[in-house]
């Protein structure tokens, strides 16, 4: 058994930033466990620019963004193990992990920071009809194969889903000389960032078919075509609107799911809506001393926000170790009208709270309102909100101290349907 102050599970952007933040608070016995053969997580395969505009005030590629954190980690001398898979986390904070060099490791930590990221939803997860040939691949897997392994996954590609990775990959495949025939989105709006719709599709003349979906995969051996259809308001295919697109690849960008199998083993309570742990504004879960940050908590739009969230988690973990500060789950935060989810879902009264939230629908002239017992605490106005862009609102500490214990804090969006 090896003893550490903090064990960080996952060495992607969240894990690296959390470790550095804790280190900055004077915690030195930290270990990062990473299953890939290098730190950096998904950033390593994101060779496009657009990272760091908020955090570094610079336009970086994914590897550059990750590289800066790796440099800082190495400079600090924070310990990490790569090619190391965590098999279990017990509720009393013993981590079991394996790798080829050390064999099986037991690591006892005073605090654990969960930073495992997310995975992609696959074809089976959307019960895709048709045959099951080669050539149906999720966008992130394709990105890894092309950018890290130098392997092409097809020549004539249809993309289902307008999530950011799908948009980025549509551009990437075009740059590689592949034909991207269309990007289909079942909703009447794009699911990725507006800047990606412009820079990845419009600039490359790739058609974006809104309110469309793939109804059948066709092909033996390899994909030979997909059947597509327009969908109605309930996302049901409209009879008679079907057409066939001949292609050899169906690239899927149909959602990301926080990876919380280890969190469950550690008996951390999860939010059904986000798929991530229930956390308070210190990013502490309902298990004392276990914190979580990044895409394991909620799927973020940009990595800069992941970094900021992870820094909160790292600082809170350090405070927990140094001062034994128990960050309570005093208030329950509820996602109200037009809010798909809100993070944090719990609050302690001890610090100000910054909420991240996603709207459930596209709305114009929107107002984000935080209230308690029918009384508005704070609100902000937005010209428009949409589910693809995360919103935020801050609640000052003073407003929290006045509230009765265990009261419910409601976060809702008022606005006009567009």
């Amino acid at each position, binding site marked *: 058994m090896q003893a550490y102050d903090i064990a960080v599970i996952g060495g992607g952007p969240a894990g690296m930033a959390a470790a550095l933040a804790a280190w900055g608070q004077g915690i030195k016995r930290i270990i990062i466990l990473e299953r890939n053969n290098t730190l950096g997580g998904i950033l390593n395969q994101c060779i496009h620019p657009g990272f760091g505009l908020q955090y570094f005030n610079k336009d970086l590629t994914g590897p550059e963004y990750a590289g800066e954190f790796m440099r800082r980690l190495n400079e600090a001398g924070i310990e990490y193990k790569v090619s190391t898979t965590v098999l279990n986390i017990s509720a009393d904070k013993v981590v079991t992990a*394996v790798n080829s060099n050390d064999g*099986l490791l037991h690591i006892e930590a005073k605090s654990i920071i969960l930073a495992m990221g997310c995975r992609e939803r696959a074809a089976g997860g959307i*019960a895709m009809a048709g045959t099951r040939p080669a050539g149906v691949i999720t966008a992130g*897997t394709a990105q890894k194969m092309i950018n890290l392994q*130098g392997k092409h996954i097809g020549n004539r590609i249809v993309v289902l889903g307008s999530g950011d990775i799908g948009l980025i990959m549509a551009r990437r495949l075009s740059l590689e000389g592949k034909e991207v025939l269309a990007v289909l989105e079942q909703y009447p709006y794009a699911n990725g960032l507006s800047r990606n719709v412009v820079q990845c599709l419009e600039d490359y003349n790739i058609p974006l078919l809104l309110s469309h979906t793939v109804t*059948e995969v066709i092909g033996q051996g390899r994909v030979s075509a997909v059947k597509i259809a327009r969908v109605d308001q309930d996302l049901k295919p409209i009879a008679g609107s079907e057409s066939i697109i001949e292609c050899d690849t169906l690239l899927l960008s149909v959602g990301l799911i926080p990876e919380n199998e280890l969190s469950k083993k550690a008996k951390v309570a999860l939010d059904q809506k986000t798929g991530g742990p229930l956390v308070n504004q210190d990013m502490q879960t309902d298990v004392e001393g276990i914190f979580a940050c990044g895409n394991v908590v909620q799927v973020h739009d940009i990595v800069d926000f992941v970094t900021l969230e992870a820094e909160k988690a790292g600082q809170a973990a350090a405070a927990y170790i140094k001062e034994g500060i128990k960050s309570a789950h005093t208030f329950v935060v509820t996602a109200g009208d037009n809010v798909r989810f809100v993070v944090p879902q719990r609050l302690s009264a001890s610090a100000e709270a910054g909420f991240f939230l996603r709207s459930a629908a596209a709305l114009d002239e929107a107002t984000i309102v935080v209230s308690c017992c029918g009384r508005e605490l704070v609100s902000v106005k937005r010209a428009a909100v949409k589910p693809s862009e995360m919103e935020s609102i801050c609640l000052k500490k003073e407003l929290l101290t006045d509230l009765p214990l265990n009261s419910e804090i409601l976060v809702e969006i008022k606005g006009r349907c567009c």
Partner: protein
Amino acid sequence: MYDIVIIGAGVVGGFVARQLSRYRLKIALIEKHDDVCFETSRANSAIIHAGYNGHPGSIKAVLTKAANEDFHNVCAQLDVEFERLGALIIAVDDEGKQKILEKYAKGQQNGIKGLELLTGKQALAMEPNLNPRVIYAMYSPTVGVVNPWEFGLAACENAVDNGVELHLSTKVLDLKRQADGYYAVKTNKGEFIAKYVINCAGIYSDEINNLVAKPFFRIAPRRGEYFVLDKEARSFVNHVVFEARADDDVKGVIIIPTVHGNVLVGPSTQDDIDKDDVKTTAEHLQAVKRVAAQSMVNIPFDLTIRTFAGIRPRPQMGKLNQKTGEWEYGEDKVKDFILGEPEGVENFINCAGIKSPGLTCANEIGKYILHIIEEKEGANLIPNPDFSPCRRPLTRFSKRTDEEKASLIKENPAFGNVVCRCGEITEAEIVDVIQRNCGARSLDGVKRRAGTSLGRCQGGFCTPLVVEILERELKRGPEQITKDEAGSNIVTDTLL
């Protein structure tokens, strides 16, 4: 020159080969696909039946009972995952109750042990998520679930271990009996001459039969579509749950906890399709959901990780219409397996029409065929001194204790490299299933043998890694690695 050619390396062909390998015989097991167990054997309900359904006195009834009683022994020999979960057969109306009473009576006639009739209340106590309108049920404790791929694959591997020659990618083009009484099996890979031919061609067994015998049966393919639910759904159901009409008719859906810890819901029923048409359809998947709701409430379909379809080789027996000279086909009441030499055709042995419970009966069918050969060959047969009924066990890393895991990694560091995170499957296990006899040659070959990409990420993380391991172990370029069969390449070209 062969003693025996077995056409078709599905679960039935595999077990026939395994049983025949007890003797010193030159046996070729030929399979048109690039891997064994590629059709019905790879997409089915994975249920091991108790034997209450077979027509009393039929071969099927006798073999099912024997197979069920011996199933754990066969699985122990072949190191195949098997769990005797028991089944609840439930009725929500009088028609269903009547069905259950018929099954119970047949079960008694067939000598099936442990069957219990239950009230709706008793059934609900055993399985809380049943439709609360359940009025009657039968509990069948000996019903089990098996890893369906592993069972057939292990039989094929064991047969090859015992000296059977496996010929993959070998398609039968013609079959003729020569003047000397031997059969000439013409394939795309040359001619096989053999004294005996055993037809284990599954959904194509009628076509093989018709090359040398009268078309006295035909296979009417019936497609079934299924949902696979994530392991999180497993706590939802404890037994195999049949709606009373499910296991011998077209109307029912089964809810099946699998040995992998998932839940399977299906099949739908669709006739009049092509034999190779294993697509899923929105319409029939919807029907599965609708019908399943009659058995259980609040099935967590939102935890779906996969849908698939399989083809059942439903036999229809033929009668020659003397007036027209045409064969006319229909389902008979007995619905038996078609085992043995067809009328007037010596040394050609059918194992045909092996629909449910064919998976259950595969080893018993193998023994049945062995007896036919023993009767015909008698003292000519010499026991195979190298025969073993056991295959080398797999090392399932995830099932080991921490101490065992530590020592496995010490022996072989590749056990420390977890490739499939959903199933906790290591590089060492993947390399093993590639290197074994009858080993994996494709991504899905690895999946069926080692269990990769069966989990909730469906290969999202491990596919690039497994492709690399296949390249290294098979010494092939990335473009030569397939998902399953020829033409299913994953990588189309490289940037390098």
